[in-house]
């Protein structure tokens, strides 16, 4: 089975979903991201979905789960790069993803999370 790579940058974890995920792969991503948040003491999670041409209710629920689990583990999640057609479809489907913070692109997402390559994130300053 494919795996979706999780990159670490400073205190953030970065994921770019580049494949059409089946449900098992989506669940595997949720589980490994949740473990990595603890293992890497991450404060932020950025998920780039600019390559996804659809988000159905299962994938949407998986993304919402990741954000909820991350929050409990003291990490903030930002979803970036959603295509306009995907946003329109999601809302019509009935899934408005409350509780997930979004940003238009990776740049803005990283700013929101205060990620920096050296790990000198402003989130780290309150330690």
């Amino acid at each position, binding site marked *: 089975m494919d795996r979706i790579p999780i990159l670490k940058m400073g205190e953030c974890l970065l994921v770019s979903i580049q494949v*059409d995920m089946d449900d098992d792969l989506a669940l595997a991503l949720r589980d490994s991201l949740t473990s990595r948040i603890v293992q890497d003491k991450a404060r932020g999670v950025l998920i780039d979905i600019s390559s996804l041409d659809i988000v159905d209710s299962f994938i949407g629920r998986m993304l919402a789960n990741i954000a909820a689990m991350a929050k409990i583990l003291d990490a903030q999640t930002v979803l970036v790069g959603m295509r306009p057609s995907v946003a329109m479809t999601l809302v*019509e489907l009935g899934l408005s993803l409350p509780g997930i913070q979004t940003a238009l692109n990776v740049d803005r997402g990283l700013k929101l999370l205060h990620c920096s390559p050296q790990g000198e994130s402003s989130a780290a300053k309150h330690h």
Partner: protein
Amino acid sequence: MPPSIISETVKNQAVKLNAASDVVMIRQAVRALAVEIGMNLVDQTKIITAASELARNAVIHGGGGDATLEIVRDAANRLGLRLSFEDRGPGIADIQRAMTDGYTTGTGLGLGLGGARRLSSEFHIQSAPEQGTKVTILKWKG
């Protein structure tokens, strides 16, 4: 609204629905057909998403089944996609309730049927306990 009258099936494709990976295959097959008839990106996204919901329903709740994907044409020469998903599962006793957002017997969100209806031009469901379920959706090229 009465169902549209289809004057011709231009293309017909059968896909087996047995595993989670078949849901991905359906999405790719529907995308290819939507592109073939020149459907716009938003409508493509809607019909692929609806197909994904219905294919997953057939795999998870219906214990597998068959999908038929068709390019159809009506008398006015309009092209569209008609997709049907048939399973041999336990069937649905209360269809109206099953169509309600948030109602689920499984672990899902209960958005599948209602969502698929909203994303399609036409929606038809046929089901009875122990008889399996057949859902047909149609989306015309805008």
